[in-house]
């Protein structure tokens, strides 16, 4: 019976099955951060339990960490306590923690892959909905709640129900100015924020095969924004090349053995998916969101929907409410709309290739004096690489702020935030009301679009600058 990669990943991690109960799955890598773990560690203490597999667990500080000078004390006392609690918990339970002083600190979904911890064939979980990022390696990777964090800490296992398989086939070649981010924004605009509920996406097709690992991570990262439990891409030579030589990747004979097993993972010829959609990469344009969920996205030159033209009353109400919050009028395009802030970073677009793309647009140009531009590398390693390539000088010369690694203005827990009413073009993943600061208004886009808009001070089609 031919199987999809999703079924192969599931089958190889079944610990225990019983009729009438969900399946107990083993977890190969558990990533932990400061926000969704403290109550789980407390739960272990209350029950007198240990962490079963500290050797399969890694913690980092990212969500509430400041991106300003790290030699200074943390101004926000509540955040400082939470960050200290992570280090205390990790020390008590024997977990390696990439804390504020670590040379490898960074956004959890950037750190795992760059250390070579994320590998094909694995199950990966984290108390964070963007865990699907790791699916780019052909891993089954998904976000979990704090009760489940506690379960994995205690048992290295999770009770799971099988998801449906949802093939997203993307063929063709992306045109200049169109990025990996535009693929996933186009998918979510098409199927809606609940379109993938109960499913795992497998991204296939020549356009996906042509993406780098970092671009694949961007695509998989936002699977949750389409409602999917996870999103993944079968491993291929691009995957193997990325992994080869990384700190935790297998070496020597172990590498050869791993490679042989990884090559068995791709979906078998003739395997059936529960659902499929096809996207023509050649037809994609730079995408931007206009509303208050990631499904409210459009090609950058397209007019916004006019609520009066929408037949479904619930949809009409939600678009009307979104446009009101965003201070926008239906029927017109977003192009030319003034912005106040540009944020380049996050687990979606905070990797070195994202910074290179933005720097390519910003080099030799100045950002608009009306716009505050934050460039936040996703990790200490991304920061080191950027420095080696001279990117901070390009950003600073253009008038951008070059920051320390963290989630920053993607989730606005650390003081990096919009003021009420401000508009941002952001390379992050969520445009929910208040996501980047209470009353703030977010347009999600690629690093190319963000950099172009930073220069002009208005929403801009990067293709006019290439």
């Amino acid at each position: 019976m031919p199987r999809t990669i999703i079924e192969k990943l599931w089958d190889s991690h079944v610990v225990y099955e019983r009729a009438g109960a969900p399946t107990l799955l083993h977890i190969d890598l558990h990533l932990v951060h400061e926000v969704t773990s403290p109550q789980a560690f407390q739960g272990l203490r209350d029950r007198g339990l240990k962490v079963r597999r500290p050797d399969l667990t890694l913690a980092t500080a990212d969500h509430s960490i400041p991106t300003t000078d790290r030699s200074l004390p943390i101004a926000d006392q509540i955040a400082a306590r939470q960050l200290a609690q992570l280090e205390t918990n990790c020390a008590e339970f024997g977990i390696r923690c990439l804390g504020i002083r670590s040379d490898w600190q960074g956004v959890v979904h950037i750190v795992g892959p760059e250390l070579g911890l994320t590998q094909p064939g694995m199950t990966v979980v984290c108390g964070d909905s963007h865990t699907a990022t790791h699916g780019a390696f052909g891993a089954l990777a998904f976000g979990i709640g704090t009760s489940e964090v506690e379960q994995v800490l205690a048992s290295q296992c999770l009770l799971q129900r099988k998801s449906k398989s949802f093939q997203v086939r993307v063929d063709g070649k992306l045109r200049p100015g169109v990025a990996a981010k535009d693929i996933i924004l186009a998918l979510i605009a098409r199927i809606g924020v609940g379109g993938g509920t109960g499913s795992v996406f497998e991204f296939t097709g020549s356009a996906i095969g042509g993406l780098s690992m970092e671009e694949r991570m961007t695509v998989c990262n936002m699977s949750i924004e389409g409602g999917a439990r996870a999103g993944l891409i079968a491993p291929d030579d691009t995957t193997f090349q990325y992994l080869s030589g990384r700190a935790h990747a297998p070496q020597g004979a172990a590498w050869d053995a791993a490679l042989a097993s990884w090559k068995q993972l791709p979906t078998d010829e003739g395997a059936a998916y529960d659902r499929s959609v096809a996207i023509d990469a050649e037809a994609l344009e730079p995408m931007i969101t206009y509303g208050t969920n990631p499904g409210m996205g459009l090609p950058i030159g397209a007019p916004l929907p006019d609520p009066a033209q929408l037949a479904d009353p619930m949809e009409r109400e939600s678009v009307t409410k979104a446009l009101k919050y965003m201070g926008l009028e239906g029927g017109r395009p977003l192009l030319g709309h003034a912005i106040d802030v540009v944020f380049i970073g996050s687990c979606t677009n905070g990797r070195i290739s994202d910074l290179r793309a933005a720097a390519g647009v910003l080099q030799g140009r100045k950002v608009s004096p009306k716009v505050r531009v934050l460039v936040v590398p996703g990790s200490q390693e991304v920061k080191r690489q950027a420095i080696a390539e001279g990117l901070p000088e390009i950003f600073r010369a253009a008038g951008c702020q070059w920051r320390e690694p963290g989630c920053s203005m993607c989730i606005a827990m650390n003081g990096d935030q919009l003021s009420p009413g401000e508009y941002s073009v952001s390379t992050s993943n969520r445009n929910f009301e208040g996501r980047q600061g209470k009353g703030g208004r977010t347009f999600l886009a690629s690093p190319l679009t963000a950099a172009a808009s930073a220069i002009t001070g208005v929403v801009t089609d990067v293709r006019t600058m290439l």
Partner: protein
Amino acid sequence: MTPFTNFQSRIVPLPLNNIDTDQIIPARFLKTTSKLGLDAQLFCDWRYDAAGNPNPDFVLNQPLARGAQVLLAGDNFGCGSSREHAPWALTQFGFRAVISTSFADIFRQNSLKNSLLPIAIPPDAHADLLAAVAANPDATVAIDLPRQKLTLPGGREVEFPVDEFSKHCLVNGVDELGYILQQEPAIAAFEAAHPAAINTLG
């Protein structure tokens, strides 16, 4: 976990689609290291104005919300972030069930672990219930988990799905972790047969 018992309650209508967990509890409140004290932050940015005063137009600030244990929301409730703070805030406010036409996966799982019942019903029953609450804010629903039945104000019974295992855990107050730890022999056998590919400590 507190056992989930059958009950009857008034309904707080919030008929918007795609209510995300950032609305249920904004991220700035996630710097806490406790599960407690989140009820005041539930729907904070819809519930209070810029000065921190209750917004009288928001349904949680209206008399009908007092003592109500059921939230009636639109499609794809709880989408977005995996924060379990969302069901913690909802239950601490007093909700024991959320009715919608569908739920986001992670929110549903988180709710079931906190004695908060996500009840997904067909669109026509959802529309009936909304109309009934609009006509009479004091209308009530009855929730019978063992029979998986929701009784609408007019007496119509609507069946809702819950998997057997979750139902058993809810009705008996069984904690999932206890069940998982009972499978220790199977976990040990699996780990013996599957050496780890990585060592994060090394």
